[in-house]
């Protein structure tokens, strides 16, 4: 110490520089996937969780003693001109019972358009107990000019749903992704 230790400087500088590069990589490449992981573990209600995979039901027992109200909300995001609504505003289901609900969409324009629905579920304590076995949100919807479509969702409320959850709200926000997905 005391003398200017050029070797020591180089060593420290290299370490700190790699530390900084590492933190940049951490922010870019670790934080987003780690956030997805946290969302799925902690039931954070995030579009990153849109888990575009269908749930495979196994060993389903229907709990006839309980009824859970499932509500449907549809939202058009900015500049999305489609008509978009669910055919019912809510249904009552028994946990374990597969239920099918149909949503309606219509493209009123004279252009072919691509839509992507993003689901969101409240309350948060229900997120991991709400399983979609079939959903139009798993894929993009391509509608020709003036085309109408009925889009089904099949879901199962898990029997393990906490007892204090009596209402689950499933919302879909419909985004116009035509620009980013022109074939």
């Amino acid at each position, binding site marked *: 110490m005391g003398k200017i230790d050029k070797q020591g400087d180089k060593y420290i500088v290299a370490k700190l520089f790699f530390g900084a590069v590492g933190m*940049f990589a*951490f*922010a870019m490449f670790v934080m987003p996937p780690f956030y997805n992981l946290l969302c799925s573990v902690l039931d954070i209600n995030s579009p990153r969780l849109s888990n575009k995979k269908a749930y495979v039901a196994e060993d389903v027992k229907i709990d006839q003693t309980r009824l859970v109200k499932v509500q449907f909300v549809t939202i058009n995001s900015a500049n999305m001109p489609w008509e978009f609504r669910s055919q019912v505003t809510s249904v009552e289901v028994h946990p374990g019972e597969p239920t099918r609900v149909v949503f309606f969409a219509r493209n009123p324009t004279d252009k072919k358009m691509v839509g992507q629905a993003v689901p969101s579920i409240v309350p948060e304590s229900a997120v991991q107990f709400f399983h979609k076995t079939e959903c139009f949100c798993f894929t993009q919807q391509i509608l020709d000019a003036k085309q109408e479509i009925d889009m089904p969702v099949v879901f199962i409320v898990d029997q393990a749903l906490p007892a204090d959850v009596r209402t689950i709200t499933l919302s879909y926000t419909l985004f116009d992704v035509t620009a980013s997905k022109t074939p």
Partner: protein
Amino acid sequence: MAHGPAKGLSRWLFATNHKDIGSMYLWFSFAMFILGGSFAMVIRAELFQPGLQLVRPEFFNQMTTMHGLVMVFGAIMPSFVGLANWMIPMMIGAPDMALPRMNNFSFWLLPFAFLILASTLFMAGGGPNFGWTFYAPLSTTYAPPSVTFFIFAVHVMGASSIMGSINIIATVLNLRAPGMTLMKMPLFVWTWLITAFLLIAVMPVLAGAVTMMLMDIHFGTSFFSAAGGGDPVLFQHVFWFFGHPEVYIIILPAFGVVSQIIPTFSRKPLFGYSSMVYATASIAFLSFIVWAHHMYVVGMPIAGEMYFMIATMLIAVPTGVKVFNWVATMFRGSISFETPMLFCIAFIILFTTGGFSGLMLSLAPSDFQYHDSYFVVAHFHYVMVAGAVFSMSAAVYYWLPKWCGRMYSEAMGKTHFWISFIGFNLTFFPQHFVGLAGMPRRIPDYNLIFADWNMVSSIGAFIYGSSQILFLFNVIRTIVAGKPSTEAKTWDGAEGLEWTVPSPAPYHTFSVPPQVS
């Protein structure tokens, strides 16, 4: 080695001397302080009374955004880097910074970064208008075209900070005089060492955040856009993972300054030196695990809210230790009230006030009412302005005789202090009231029930702002025509190696390392 400074412009352009670079940092940060302050004056002038009088809402948003960015990245951070450049080598008995050429580079990046940032104000669509926190998608899909220049400016200033930090760490770890063990270092050096590690850890995260923004804007990725399976809330997590440690990056060197000055004017050693070091380290550690307390109303699961609330409350403990130690340092000392000491006493009072409102904000349920209201604005100005800016003023008065061998005018210094103190409190204390009464932040116009306190606040801001002109005048007058003050130890109670060299400090100090016992 005993040559003097180069002549003319090349002394500054190719500067490698830590004192020259320190001076440039200090002058640059003061210029940015004036620039950011003038943005604040525009904001307060518009808010002087209800109605839209002076500026349009979109320009108002650019003002709030640029005020925040310039003050945080242009004024406060570089001012402490300048102080570190000047003082750290002299405090640890080193001849210069460890990496003088990198030092030059990291300074000269800054003027370019801020030139780019300031020029966005004149671009089509205006400058950044999305707040200094630039939440997506307002800062991505809905941003003005100048956002790309903003991103570039953030990258450049981030690179500057990282290089500056590497330099400080290398200097502190490698260039200490014989006998200067880590636990003998002045507290200012300690707080900067820890701050430098924080900077290296989080400035790259900020760079990552703006890079993801850039990719979302120009390269069709969807990190933060829900349409493509991204999440706007992720942006806030990444931002505050940088942003919360950033708050401590700003305040820790201020703690260091206060810990130097209070013992001097109390003529009594700093109370609890080692607990101060540990408290600083604990604050730095805690800063990494509390970020989401900025996001209580974003829709987090209750478990997350509880965790972040409790972790945040814990910060009160090491921060409290620091305040208690400063008070204990003064207790049974022999206290005199020169300008630096006045600023430090005010620092303790006002920073503690900001700490109390911070404790209130940490309570998640109450935060549902405080969040994004003027209460938050009052809180962070109590810790940023009364914390960082007051301690910086104290530091300038304290070390100015060492830097230029001349004594500032005590009368003018004290006048500056009292005007600042009164102006500051008039500005920011009423903002607690309007915030609690329901006034959101970042609005250019408001209902009449908020009018009285906003007027008081604006008057206070003009007072506080004009007091800085007196400060500038006092500093320039000292440098040009101050009373010579050439004794090595300007203050009779001062301790440390910087007070063993002559005043003004020679261009090269400690070419032969001193022996520290």
